[in-house]
Protein backbone atom coordinates (compact mmCIF):
# COMPACT_ATOMS: atom_id res chain seq x y z
CA UNK A 1 0.00 0.00 0.00
CA UNK A 2 1.23 3.42 -0.88
CA UNK A 3 1.49 5.91 1.89
CA UNK A 4 1.23 9.60 1.63
CA UNK A 5 5.00 9.76 2.05
CA UNK A 6 5.53 7.96 -1.25
CA UNK A 7 3.30 10.36 -3.00
CA UNK A 8 5.22 13.25 -1.61
CA UNK A 9 8.43 11.73 -2.80
CA UNK A 10 7.10 11.53 -6.31
CA UNK A 11 6.19 15.17 -6.45
CA UNK A 12 9.21 16.35 -4.52
CA UNK A 13 11.26 16.74 -7.67
CA UNK A 14 11.60 20.50 -7.86
CA UNK A 15 9.06 21.75 -10.32
CA UNK A 16 10.01 25.01 -11.99
CA UNK A 17 7.93 27.70 -10.38
CA UNK A 18 5.08 28.53 -12.70
CA UNK A 19 5.67 31.91 -14.13
CA UNK A 20 3.03 34.38 -13.18
CA UNK A 21 2.09 34.90 -16.79
CA UNK A 22 -1.52 34.95 -17.81
CA UNK A 23 -2.87 31.51 -18.64
CA UNK A 24 -5.59 31.25 -21.26
CA UNK A 25 -8.49 28.89 -20.76
CA UNK A 26 -9.31 26.30 -23.42
CA UNK A 27 -12.28 24.71 -21.74
CA UNK A 28 -14.62 26.23 -19.28
CA UNK A 29 -17.19 23.85 -17.89
CA UNK A 30 -20.29 25.29 -16.27
CA UNK A 31 -22.78 23.30 -14.22
CA UNK A 32 -22.47 20.30 -16.48
CA UNK A 33 -24.65 17.28 -15.76
CA UNK A 34 -24.88 14.04 -17.66
CA UNK A 35 -27.19 11.06 -17.37
CA UNK A 36 -27.10 7.58 -18.88
CA UNK A 37 -30.81 6.86 -18.94
CA UNK A 38 -31.80 7.46 -15.35
CA UNK A 39 -28.35 7.17 -13.82
CA UNK A 40 -26.59 10.44 -13.32
CA UNK A 41 -22.94 9.99 -14.28
CA UNK A 42 -21.73 13.58 -13.90
CA UNK A 43 -23.04 16.05 -11.37
CA UNK A 44 -22.68 19.76 -11.61
CA UNK A 45 -19.16 19.81 -12.99
CA UNK A 46 -17.63 23.23 -12.93
CA UNK A 47 -14.02 24.13 -13.63
CA UNK A 48 -11.69 25.70 -16.16
CA UNK A 49 -8.98 23.89 -18.09
CA UNK A 50 -5.88 25.91 -18.93
CA UNK A 51 -4.11 26.18 -22.26
CA UNK A 52 -0.82 24.39 -22.98
CA UNK A 53 -0.73 22.52 -19.74
CA UNK A 54 -1.41 18.96 -18.78
CA UNK A 55 -4.62 18.53 -16.86
CA UNK A 56 -5.04 15.14 -15.25
CA UNK A 57 -8.39 13.65 -14.34
CA UNK A 58 -8.08 11.03 -11.61
CA UNK A 59 -10.54 8.99 -9.65
CA UNK A 60 -11.66 5.42 -9.01
CA UNK A 61 -13.36 3.26 -11.66
CA UNK A 62 -16.86 4.36 -12.47
CA UNK A 63 -16.39 7.89 -11.15
CA UNK A 64 -17.24 9.43 -14.52
CA UNK A 65 -13.76 10.49 -15.59
CA UNK A 66 -13.93 8.76 -18.97
CA UNK A 67 -17.46 10.02 -19.49
CA UNK A 68 -16.27 13.53 -18.73
CA UNK A 69 -13.39 13.48 -21.19
CA UNK A 70 -15.66 12.04 -23.86
CA UNK A 71 -18.09 14.89 -23.27
CA UNK A 72 -15.32 17.33 -24.14
CA UNK A 73 -15.32 16.21 -27.78
CA UNK A 74 -18.92 15.01 -27.68
CA UNK A 75 -17.92 11.41 -28.32
CA UNK A 76 -20.20 10.58 -25.42
CA UNK A 77 -23.14 11.24 -27.72
CA UNK A 78 -22.42 7.94 -29.45
CA UNK A 79 -24.18 6.32 -26.50
CA UNK A 80 -27.83 6.58 -27.52
CA UNK A 81 -29.37 7.01 -24.06
CA UNK A 82 -27.21 9.90 -22.95
CA UNK A 83 -28.73 13.21 -21.74
CA UNK A 84 -26.87 16.34 -20.75
CA UNK A 85 -27.46 19.74 -19.24
CA UNK A 86 -25.23 22.73 -18.61
CA UNK A 87 -22.48 24.16 -20.76
CA UNK A 88 -19.06 23.16 -21.92
CA UNK A 89 -17.35 26.12 -23.51
CA UNK A 90 -14.43 25.49 -25.78
CA UNK A 91 -12.52 28.69 -26.52
CA UNK A 92 -15.52 30.68 -25.41
CA UNK A 93 -18.11 28.85 -27.46
CA UNK A 94 -20.67 26.42 -26.15
CA UNK A 95 -20.01 23.12 -27.92
CA UNK A 96 -23.58 21.94 -27.43
CA UNK A 97 -25.06 24.81 -29.38
CA UNK A 98 -26.98 23.69 -32.42
CA UNK A 99 -24.81 25.41 -34.97
CA UNK A 100 -21.62 23.98 -33.46
CA UNK A 101 -20.76 21.02 -35.64
CA UNK A 102 -19.13 18.04 -33.91
CA UNK A 103 -16.90 17.51 -36.93
CA UNK A 104 -15.54 21.03 -36.43
CA UNK A 105 -14.99 20.48 -32.72
CA UNK A 106 -13.24 17.15 -33.20
CA UNK A 107 -10.94 18.65 -35.81
CA UNK A 108 -9.55 20.91 -33.10
CA UNK A 109 -9.82 18.46 -30.24
CA UNK A 110 -8.04 15.20 -30.93
CA UNK A 111 -8.38 12.06 -28.87
CA UNK A 112 -6.20 9.12 -27.91
CA UNK A 113 -8.06 6.12 -26.59
CA UNK A 114 -7.49 3.60 -23.86
CA UNK A 115 -6.68 0.75 -26.18
CA UNK A 116 -4.46 1.52 -29.17
CA UNK A 117 -6.85 1.57 -32.11
CA UNK A 118 -4.89 2.00 -35.33
CA UNK A 119 -6.75 1.29 -38.55
CA UNK A 120 -5.94 -1.98 -40.32
CA UNK A 121 -3.97 0.01 -42.86
CA UNK A 122 -0.33 0.94 -43.36
CA UNK A 123 1.46 3.20 -40.90
CA UNK A 124 1.49 5.92 -43.52
CA UNK A 125 -2.24 5.61 -44.23
CA UNK A 126 -2.99 5.75 -40.53
CA UNK A 127 -1.24 9.07 -40.11
CA UNK A 128 -2.69 10.70 -43.21
CA UNK A 129 -6.23 9.55 -42.39
CA UNK A 130 -7.14 12.79 -40.65
CA UNK A 131 -5.55 15.17 -43.18
CA UNK A 132 -7.18 13.21 -46.01
CA UNK A 133 -10.67 13.43 -44.59
CA UNK A 134 -10.13 17.15 -44.30
CA UNK A 135 -9.37 17.30 -47.98
CA UNK A 136 -5.57 17.44 -48.14
CA UNK A 137 -4.53 15.53 -51.24
CA UNK A 138 -1.09 16.93 -52.10
CA UNK A 139 1.33 14.01 -51.75
CA UNK A 140 4.25 16.24 -50.77
CA UNK A 141 2.33 17.89 -47.98
CA UNK A 142 1.03 14.52 -46.80
CA UNK A 143 4.59 13.16 -46.73
CA UNK A 144 5.68 16.09 -44.63
CA UNK A 145 2.74 15.66 -42.29
CA UNK A 146 3.65 12.01 -41.80
CA UNK A 147 7.24 12.81 -40.94
CA UNK A 148 6.36 15.70 -38.65
CA UNK A 149 3.61 13.79 -36.84
CA UNK A 150 5.65 10.64 -36.36
CA UNK A 151 8.57 12.70 -35.09
CA UNK A 152 6.15 14.52 -32.82
CA UNK A 153 5.03 11.19 -31.42
CA UNK A 154 8.64 9.96 -31.06
CA UNK A 155 8.00 7.11 -33.45
CA UNK A 156 9.74 8.29 -36.61
CA UNK A 157 13.10 6.65 -36.00
CA UNK A 158 11.46 3.28 -35.34
CA UNK A 159 9.20 3.18 -38.38
CA UNK A 160 10.67 5.46 -41.04
CA UNK A 161 11.84 2.49 -43.12
CA UNK A 162 8.54 0.66 -43.03
CA UNK A 163 5.87 3.28 -43.45
CA UNK A 164 3.98 1.07 -45.86
CA UNK A 165 3.74 -1.89 -43.54
CA UNK A 166 0.52 -2.69 -41.74
CA UNK A 167 0.17 -0.86 -38.44
CA UNK A 168 -0.92 -4.09 -36.77
CA UNK A 169 2.67 -5.28 -37.00
CA UNK A 170 3.76 -2.69 -34.44
CA UNK A 171 3.99 -3.40 -30.72
CA UNK A 172 1.28 -2.13 -28.42
CA UNK A 173 3.33 0.85 -27.29
CA UNK A 174 4.26 1.74 -30.84
CA UNK A 175 0.61 1.44 -31.88
CA UNK A 176 -0.39 3.87 -29.16
CA UNK A 177 2.26 6.35 -30.25
CA UNK A 178 1.03 5.88 -33.82
CA UNK A 179 -2.44 6.82 -32.58
CA UNK A 180 -0.92 9.92 -31.00
CA UNK A 181 0.82 10.70 -34.30
CA UNK A 182 -2.47 10.21 -36.13
CA UNK A 183 -4.01 12.66 -33.73
CA UNK A 184 -1.19 15.19 -34.21
CA UNK A 185 -1.54 15.00 -37.98
CA UNK A 186 -4.57 17.26 -38.04
CA UNK A 187 -2.67 19.77 -35.87
CA UNK A 188 -5.25 19.96 -33.11
CA UNK A 189 -5.45 22.51 -30.34
CA UNK A 190 -6.33 20.10 -27.55
CA UNK A 191 -5.47 16.44 -27.13
CA UNK A 192 -7.71 14.31 -24.97
CA UNK A 193 -6.17 11.12 -23.64
CA UNK A 194 -8.38 8.49 -22.10
CA UNK A 195 -6.10 6.29 -19.99
CA UNK A 196 -3.60 6.11 -22.84
CA UNK A 197 -1.11 3.92 -21.00
CA UNK A 198 -3.41 1.47 -19.26
CA UNK A 199 -2.83 -1.19 -21.91
CA UNK A 200 0.92 -0.61 -22.15
CA UNK A 201 3.98 -2.05 -20.45
CA UNK A 202 6.06 0.17 -18.14
CA UNK A 203 8.65 1.11 -20.75
CA UNK A 204 6.06 2.08 -23.33
CA UNK A 205 4.23 3.95 -20.58
CA UNK A 206 7.37 5.90 -19.79
CA UNK A 207 7.77 6.82 -23.44
CA UNK A 208 4.23 8.07 -23.69
CA UNK A 209 4.67 10.06 -20.48
CA UNK A 210 7.81 11.71 -21.80
CA UNK A 211 5.95 12.43 -24.98
CA UNK A 212 3.17 14.16 -23.08
CA UNK A 213 5.73 16.43 -21.46
CA UNK A 214 7.04 17.29 -24.90
CA UNK A 215 3.60 17.79 -26.43
CA UNK A 216 2.35 20.24 -23.85
CA UNK A 217 4.64 22.88 -25.30
CA UNK A 218 2.35 23.01 -28.29
CA UNK A 219 -0.92 21.47 -27.21
CA UNK A 220 -3.30 21.57 -24.31
CA UNK A 221 -3.54 18.07 -22.93
CA UNK A 222 -6.26 16.55 -20.83
CA UNK A 223 -5.44 13.09 -19.61
CA UNK A 224 -7.58 10.60 -17.76
CA UNK A 225 -5.56 8.21 -15.65
CA UNK A 226 -6.23 5.75 -12.89
CA UNK A 227 -2.58 5.87 -12.03
CA UNK A 228 -2.03 8.57 -9.41
CA UNK A 229 1.74 8.54 -9.71
CA UNK A 230 1.35 9.17 -13.39
CA UNK A 231 -0.88 12.15 -12.73
CA UNK A 232 1.65 13.44 -10.21
CA UNK A 233 4.53 12.94 -12.65
CA UNK A 234 3.14 14.54 -15.73
CA UNK A 235 0.34 16.95 -14.95
CA UNK A 236 0.18 20.59 -14.00
CA UNK A 237 -3.41 20.55 -12.84
CA UNK A 238 -5.36 17.66 -11.38
CA UNK A 239 -9.06 17.13 -10.94
CA UNK A 240 -10.20 14.41 -8.59
CA UNK A 241 -13.53 12.87 -9.58
CA UNK A 242 -15.66 10.80 -7.25
CA UNK A 243 -19.15 9.48 -7.98
CA UNK A 244 -19.60 11.91 -10.82
CA UNK A 245 -18.54 14.98 -8.90
CA UNK A 246 -15.35 16.99 -8.89
CA UNK A 247 -14.17 16.70 -5.32
CA UNK A 248 -11.07 18.77 -5.77
CA UNK A 249 -9.40 20.63 -8.58
CA UNK A 250 -6.12 22.41 -8.12
CA UNK A 251 -2.46 22.50 -9.07
CA UNK A 252 -1.08 18.99 -9.07
CA UNK A 253 1.55 19.87 -6.47
CA UNK A 254 -1.05 21.24 -4.20
CA UNK A 255 -3.49 18.38 -4.65
CA UNK A 256 -0.97 15.66 -3.95
CA UNK A 257 0.97 17.31 -1.16
CA UNK A 258 -1.75 19.15 0.61
CA UNK A 259 -5.21 18.02 -0.41
CA UNK A 260 -7.95 20.17 1.01
CA UNK A 261 -10.61 17.49 1.00
CA UNK A 262 -10.54 14.43 3.22
CA UNK A 263 -11.78 12.20 0.38
CA UNK A 264 -8.95 13.32 -1.89
CA UNK A 265 -6.48 12.53 0.81
CA UNK A 266 -7.99 9.11 1.37
CA UNK A 267 -7.85 8.36 -2.33
CA UNK A 268 -4.31 9.51 -3.04
CA UNK A 269 -2.99 7.74 -0.01
CA UNK A 270 -4.57 4.55 -1.27
CA UNK A 271 -7.20 4.10 1.39
CA UNK A 272 -9.76 3.30 -1.30
CA UNK A 273 -10.08 3.15 -5.04
Amino acid sequence: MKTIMDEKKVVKAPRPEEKKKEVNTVYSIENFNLWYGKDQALKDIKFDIPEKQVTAIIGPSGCGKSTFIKALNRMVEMVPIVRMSGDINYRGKNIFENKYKVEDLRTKVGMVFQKPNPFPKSIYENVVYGPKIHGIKNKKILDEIVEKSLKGAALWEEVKDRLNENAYGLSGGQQQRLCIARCLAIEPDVILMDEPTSALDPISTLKVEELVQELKKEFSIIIVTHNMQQAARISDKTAFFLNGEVVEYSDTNQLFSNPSDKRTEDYITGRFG
Partner: protein
Amino acid sequence: MQLVDQAKVKSRMQTRLKQNKVLKGVFFGTTIFALVVLVILLYRILTQGIGYLDLQFFQNFASRFPEKAGIKAAFFGSLWLMAVIAPVSLIIGVGTAIYLEEYAKKNRFTTFIQINISNLAGVPSIVFGLLGLTVFVRMLEMGRSVLAGGLTMSLLILPIIVVAAQEAVRSVPKELREASYAMGATKWQTIKKVVLPAAIPGILTGGILALSRAIGETAPLLMIGALTFVAYLPENLLSGFTVMPIQIFNWTSRPQTEFHDVAAAGIIVLLAMLLIMNSIAVLIRNKFSKRL
Protein backbone atom coordinates in the same frame (compact mmCIF):
# COMPACT_ATOMS: atom_id res chain seq x y z
CA MET B 1 -17.05 -47.61 4.94
CA GLN B 2 -16.69 -47.83 1.23
CA LEU B 3 -19.64 -46.43 -0.71
CA VAL B 4 -18.24 -47.36 -4.07
CA ASP B 5 -18.27 -51.09 -4.74
CA GLN B 6 -15.15 -51.56 -6.82
CA ALA B 7 -16.18 -55.00 -8.11
CA LYS B 8 -19.47 -53.70 -9.51
CA VAL B 9 -17.74 -50.71 -11.02
CA LYS B 10 -15.44 -53.08 -12.81
CA SER B 11 -18.27 -55.24 -14.11
CA ARG B 12 -20.15 -52.18 -15.39
CA MET B 13 -17.10 -50.91 -17.15
CA GLN B 14 -17.65 -53.17 -20.16
CA THR B 15 -21.22 -51.99 -20.78
CA ARG B 16 -20.21 -48.36 -20.49
CA LEU B 17 -17.43 -48.78 -22.98
CA LYS B 18 -19.68 -50.73 -25.34
CA GLN B 19 -22.34 -48.02 -25.11
CA ASN B 20 -19.72 -45.46 -25.94
CA LYS B 21 -18.64 -47.38 -29.00
CA VAL B 22 -22.17 -47.98 -30.25
CA LEU B 23 -23.12 -44.33 -30.06
CA LYS B 24 -20.00 -43.29 -31.86
CA GLY B 25 -21.13 -45.65 -34.63
CA VAL B 26 -24.64 -44.22 -34.66
CA PHE B 27 -23.43 -40.67 -35.09
CA PHE B 28 -20.97 -41.73 -37.76
CA GLY B 29 -23.87 -43.49 -39.50
CA THR B 30 -26.01 -40.37 -39.60
CA THR B 31 -23.15 -38.46 -41.16
CA ILE B 32 -22.49 -41.18 -43.70
CA PHE B 33 -26.19 -41.44 -44.58
CA ALA B 34 -26.32 -37.90 -45.94
CA LEU B 35 -22.99 -38.37 -47.62
CA VAL B 36 -23.93 -41.67 -49.25
CA VAL B 37 -27.16 -40.24 -50.66
CA LEU B 38 -25.21 -37.31 -52.07
CA VAL B 39 -22.57 -39.58 -53.56
CA ILE B 40 -25.18 -41.85 -55.17
CA LEU B 41 -26.93 -38.84 -56.61
CA LEU B 42 -23.70 -37.39 -57.94
CA TYR B 43 -22.62 -40.75 -59.33
CA ARG B 44 -25.91 -41.28 -61.16
CA ILE B 45 -25.89 -37.80 -62.57
CA LEU B 46 -22.27 -38.03 -63.62
CA THR B 47 -22.61 -41.40 -65.35
CA GLN B 48 -25.85 -40.35 -66.99
CA GLY B 49 -24.85 -36.93 -68.10
CA ILE B 50 -21.15 -37.13 -68.84
CA GLY B 51 -21.78 -38.53 -72.33
CA TYR B 52 -23.71 -35.46 -73.37
CA LEU B 53 -21.29 -33.06 -71.78
CA ASP B 54 -19.22 -31.79 -74.66
CA LEU B 55 -18.55 -28.52 -76.39
CA GLN B 56 -21.65 -28.96 -78.50
CA PHE B 57 -23.76 -29.05 -75.39
CA PHE B 58 -22.75 -25.47 -74.67
CA GLN B 59 -23.11 -24.37 -78.27
CA ASN B 60 -26.56 -25.72 -79.02
CA PHE B 61 -29.95 -24.37 -78.19
CA ALA B 62 -32.81 -26.53 -76.99
CA SER B 63 -33.92 -29.09 -79.55
CA ARG B 64 -36.45 -31.79 -80.13
CA PHE B 65 -33.61 -34.22 -80.61
CA PRO B 66 -31.68 -35.17 -77.52
CA GLU B 67 -28.34 -35.43 -79.30
CA LYS B 68 -28.76 -31.88 -80.60
CA ALA B 69 -30.11 -30.40 -77.40
CA GLY B 70 -27.82 -27.92 -75.70
CA ILE B 71 -27.85 -25.64 -72.70
CA LYS B 72 -26.66 -22.49 -74.46
CA ALA B 73 -29.86 -20.46 -74.04
CA ALA B 74 -30.30 -21.50 -70.41
CA PHE B 75 -26.62 -20.96 -69.55
CA PHE B 76 -26.56 -17.46 -70.95
CA GLY B 77 -30.04 -16.83 -69.58
CA SER B 78 -28.68 -17.61 -66.12
CA LEU B 79 -25.73 -15.28 -66.70
CA TRP B 80 -28.04 -12.49 -67.85
CA LEU B 81 -30.20 -13.03 -64.82
CA MET B 82 -27.16 -12.83 -62.54
CA ALA B 83 -26.11 -9.62 -64.25
CA VAL B 84 -29.41 -8.13 -63.10
CA ILE B 85 -29.58 -9.75 -59.67
CA ALA B 86 -26.03 -9.05 -58.52
CA PRO B 87 -25.97 -5.24 -58.79
CA VAL B 88 -29.61 -4.74 -57.79
CA SER B 89 -29.56 -6.96 -54.72
CA LEU B 90 -26.08 -5.93 -53.57
CA ILE B 91 -26.70 -2.19 -53.87
CA ILE B 92 -30.10 -2.27 -52.22
CA GLY B 93 -29.06 -4.88 -49.67
CA VAL B 94 -25.85 -3.19 -48.56
CA GLY B 95 -27.56 0.21 -48.55
CA THR B 96 -30.28 -1.13 -46.28
CA ALA B 97 -27.76 -2.79 -43.98
CA ILE B 98 -25.73 0.42 -43.68
CA TYR B 99 -28.83 2.46 -42.94
CA LEU B 100 -30.05 0.05 -40.29
CA GLU B 101 -26.67 -0.39 -38.62
CA GLU B 102 -25.12 3.06 -38.91
CA TYR B 103 -27.84 5.65 -39.30
CA ALA B 104 -31.14 4.35 -37.94
CA LYS B 105 -32.01 5.17 -34.37
CA LYS B 106 -32.93 2.14 -32.34
CA ASN B 107 -36.68 2.59 -31.99
CA ARG B 108 -39.83 0.58 -32.60
CA PHE B 109 -39.87 1.39 -36.27
CA THR B 110 -36.40 -0.01 -36.94
CA THR B 111 -37.16 -3.05 -34.80
CA PHE B 112 -40.28 -3.56 -36.92
CA ILE B 113 -38.26 -3.36 -40.12
CA GLN B 114 -35.65 -5.69 -38.67
CA ILE B 115 -38.22 -8.36 -37.75
CA ASN B 116 -39.80 -8.12 -41.17
CA ILE B 117 -36.52 -8.56 -42.96
CA SER B 118 -35.81 -11.71 -40.98
CA ASN B 119 -39.32 -12.95 -41.71
CA LEU B 120 -38.99 -12.26 -45.41
CA ALA B 121 -36.02 -14.61 -45.51
CA GLY B 122 -38.43 -17.40 -44.56
CA VAL B 123 -41.16 -16.62 -47.11
CA PRO B 124 -41.53 -19.42 -49.70
CA SER B 125 -39.99 -18.50 -53.01
CA ILE B 126 -43.22 -19.14 -54.92
CA VAL B 127 -44.75 -16.18 -53.06
CA PHE B 128 -41.99 -13.97 -54.39
CA GLY B 129 -42.85 -15.34 -57.83
CA LEU B 130 -46.45 -14.21 -57.41
CA LEU B 131 -45.26 -10.81 -56.26
CA GLY B 132 -42.98 -10.51 -59.28
CA LEU B 133 -45.80 -11.54 -61.59
CA THR B 134 -48.16 -8.92 -60.18
CA VAL B 135 -45.75 -6.05 -59.76
CA PHE B 136 -43.04 -6.38 -62.38
CA VAL B 137 -44.68 -8.38 -65.17
CA ARG B 138 -48.17 -6.90 -65.04
CA MET B 139 -48.19 -3.58 -63.16
CA LEU B 140 -44.90 -2.25 -64.46
CA GLU B 141 -45.45 -4.04 -67.78
CA MET B 142 -41.98 -5.48 -68.04
CA GLY B 143 -43.37 -8.65 -69.54
CA ARG B 144 -41.78 -12.04 -69.06
CA SER B 145 -38.35 -10.51 -69.38
CA VAL B 146 -34.89 -10.91 -67.94
CA LEU B 147 -35.48 -7.67 -66.07
CA ALA B 148 -38.69 -8.86 -64.42
CA GLY B 149 -37.07 -12.19 -63.54
CA GLY B 150 -33.95 -10.53 -62.19
CA LEU B 151 -35.86 -8.07 -60.04
CA THR B 152 -38.04 -10.84 -58.63
CA MET B 153 -35.00 -12.91 -57.76
CA SER B 154 -33.32 -9.84 -56.24
CA LEU B 155 -36.29 -9.46 -53.90
CA LEU B 156 -36.01 -13.12 -53.01
CA ILE B 157 -32.39 -12.92 -51.91
CA LEU B 158 -32.47 -9.38 -50.52
CA PRO B 159 -33.28 -10.44 -46.96
CA ILE B 160 -30.34 -12.85 -46.96
CA ILE B 161 -27.98 -10.17 -48.25
CA VAL B 162 -29.28 -7.56 -45.82
CA VAL B 163 -28.80 -9.84 -42.83
CA ALA B 164 -25.33 -10.95 -43.97
CA ALA B 165 -24.25 -7.38 -44.66
CA GLN B 166 -25.64 -6.20 -41.33
CA GLU B 167 -23.63 -8.83 -39.52
CA ALA B 168 -20.50 -7.86 -41.44
CA VAL B 169 -21.01 -4.17 -40.66
CA ARG B 170 -21.77 -4.89 -37.02
CA SER B 171 -18.60 -6.93 -36.61
CA VAL B 172 -16.37 -3.94 -37.44
CA PRO B 173 -14.82 -3.01 -34.08
CA LYS B 174 -16.36 0.00 -32.38
CA GLU B 175 -12.86 1.33 -31.64
CA LEU B 176 -12.16 1.87 -35.33
CA ARG B 177 -15.30 3.93 -35.79
CA GLU B 178 -14.45 5.95 -32.70
CA ALA B 179 -10.96 6.64 -34.00
CA SER B 180 -12.43 8.00 -37.20
CA TYR B 181 -15.16 10.10 -35.60
CA ALA B 182 -12.70 11.50 -33.06
CA MET B 183 -10.74 13.03 -35.89
CA GLY B 184 -13.67 14.95 -37.20
CA ALA B 185 -14.70 12.51 -39.92
CA THR B 186 -18.33 12.59 -40.98
CA LYS B 187 -20.50 9.52 -40.83
CA TRP B 188 -20.19 8.89 -44.54
CA GLN B 189 -16.40 9.28 -44.49
CA THR B 190 -16.22 6.81 -41.64
CA ILE B 191 -18.44 4.34 -43.47
CA LYS B 192 -16.51 4.71 -46.71
CA LYS B 193 -13.00 4.58 -45.32
CA VAL B 194 -13.29 2.43 -42.21
CA VAL B 195 -16.51 0.42 -41.99
CA LEU B 196 -16.94 -0.76 -45.57
CA PRO B 197 -13.31 -1.84 -46.15
CA ALA B 198 -13.45 -3.92 -42.98
CA ALA B 199 -16.90 -5.31 -43.75
CA ILE B 200 -16.43 -6.05 -47.44
CA PRO B 201 -15.26 -9.68 -47.08
CA GLY B 202 -18.33 -10.56 -45.04
CA ILE B 203 -20.60 -8.70 -47.42
CA LEU B 204 -19.12 -10.41 -50.48
CA THR B 205 -19.25 -13.86 -48.92
CA GLY B 206 -22.89 -13.41 -47.97
CA GLY B 207 -23.65 -11.89 -51.34
CA ILE B 208 -22.15 -14.72 -53.35
CA LEU B 209 -23.87 -17.37 -51.26
CA ALA B 210 -27.17 -15.56 -51.79
CA LEU B 211 -26.49 -15.34 -55.53
CA SER B 212 -25.78 -19.02 -55.70
CA ARG B 213 -29.15 -19.60 -54.14
CA ALA B 214 -30.75 -17.40 -56.80
CA ILE B 215 -29.09 -19.30 -59.62
CA GLY B 216 -30.57 -22.61 -58.47
CA GLU B 217 -34.03 -21.25 -57.75
CA THR B 218 -36.82 -22.25 -60.14
CA ALA B 219 -40.24 -21.62 -58.64
CA PRO B 220 -40.45 -17.82 -58.85
CA LEU B 221 -39.28 -17.85 -62.44
CA LEU B 222 -41.85 -20.47 -63.42
CA MET B 223 -44.39 -18.19 -61.78
CA ILE B 224 -43.47 -15.11 -63.72
CA GLY B 225 -43.31 -17.24 -66.84
CA ALA B 226 -39.75 -17.72 -67.89
CA LEU B 227 -39.85 -19.65 -71.14
CA THR B 228 -39.09 -23.34 -71.29
CA PHE B 229 -38.15 -23.65 -74.92
CA VAL B 230 -35.84 -20.93 -76.08
CA ALA B 231 -33.81 -20.99 -79.25
CA TYR B 232 -32.18 -17.59 -78.97
CA LEU B 233 -30.04 -15.60 -76.54
CA PRO B 234 -31.45 -12.65 -74.64
CA GLU B 235 -30.53 -9.48 -76.49
CA ASN B 236 -31.54 -6.92 -73.95
CA LEU B 237 -33.14 -6.66 -70.54
CA LEU B 238 -36.62 -7.03 -71.97
CA SER B 239 -35.93 -10.24 -73.91
CA GLY B 240 -37.60 -13.48 -72.98
CA PHE B 241 -35.25 -15.98 -71.35
CA THR B 242 -34.84 -19.31 -69.69
CA VAL B 243 -32.44 -20.42 -66.98
CA MET B 244 -30.64 -23.65 -66.22
CA PRO B 245 -32.95 -25.04 -63.53
CA ILE B 246 -35.99 -24.49 -65.75
CA GLN B 247 -34.29 -26.07 -68.73
CA ILE B 248 -33.37 -29.07 -66.59
CA PHE B 249 -36.89 -29.33 -65.28
CA ASN B 250 -38.16 -29.20 -68.84
CA TRP B 251 -35.85 -31.97 -69.98
CA THR B 252 -36.68 -34.28 -67.10
CA SER B 253 -40.41 -33.94 -67.78
CA ARG B 254 -40.04 -35.26 -71.32
CA PRO B 255 -40.96 -38.87 -72.00
CA GLN B 256 -37.81 -39.84 -73.93
CA THR B 257 -35.21 -41.27 -71.57
CA GLU B 258 -32.40 -39.72 -73.62
CA PHE B 259 -33.58 -36.35 -72.42
CA HIS B 260 -33.12 -37.49 -68.85
CA ASP B 261 -29.45 -37.93 -69.64
CA VAL B 262 -29.36 -34.48 -71.18
CA ALA B 263 -30.93 -33.18 -67.98
CA ALA B 264 -28.16 -34.89 -66.02
CA ALA B 265 -25.60 -33.07 -68.13
CA GLY B 266 -27.40 -29.82 -67.35
CA ILE B 267 -27.32 -30.60 -63.64
CA ILE B 268 -23.57 -31.14 -63.83
CA VAL B 269 -23.14 -27.70 -65.37
CA LEU B 270 -25.39 -26.13 -62.72
CA LEU B 271 -23.61 -27.91 -59.87
CA ALA B 272 -20.23 -26.92 -61.26
CA MET B 273 -21.32 -23.30 -61.39
CA LEU B 274 -22.58 -23.42 -57.79
CA LEU B 275 -19.38 -25.07 -56.66
CA ILE B 276 -17.31 -22.39 -58.34
CA MET B 277 -19.32 -19.60 -56.77
CA ASN B 278 -19.14 -21.09 -53.30
CA SER B 279 -15.41 -21.62 -53.69
CA ILE B 280 -15.00 -17.97 -54.63
CA ALA B 281 -16.90 -17.02 -51.48
CA VAL B 282 -14.60 -19.19 -49.35
CA LEU B 283 -11.51 -17.83 -51.10
CA ILE B 284 -12.57 -14.25 -50.48
CA ARG B 285 -13.24 -14.99 -46.84
CA ASN B 286 -9.85 -16.62 -46.36
CA LYS B 287 -7.94 -13.97 -48.25
CA PHE B 288 -9.39 -11.11 -46.24
CA SER B 289 -9.44 -12.77 -42.87
CA LYS B 290 -5.69 -13.35 -43.15
CA ARG B 291 -5.05 -9.69 -43.78
CA LEU B 292 -6.70 -8.52 -40.59
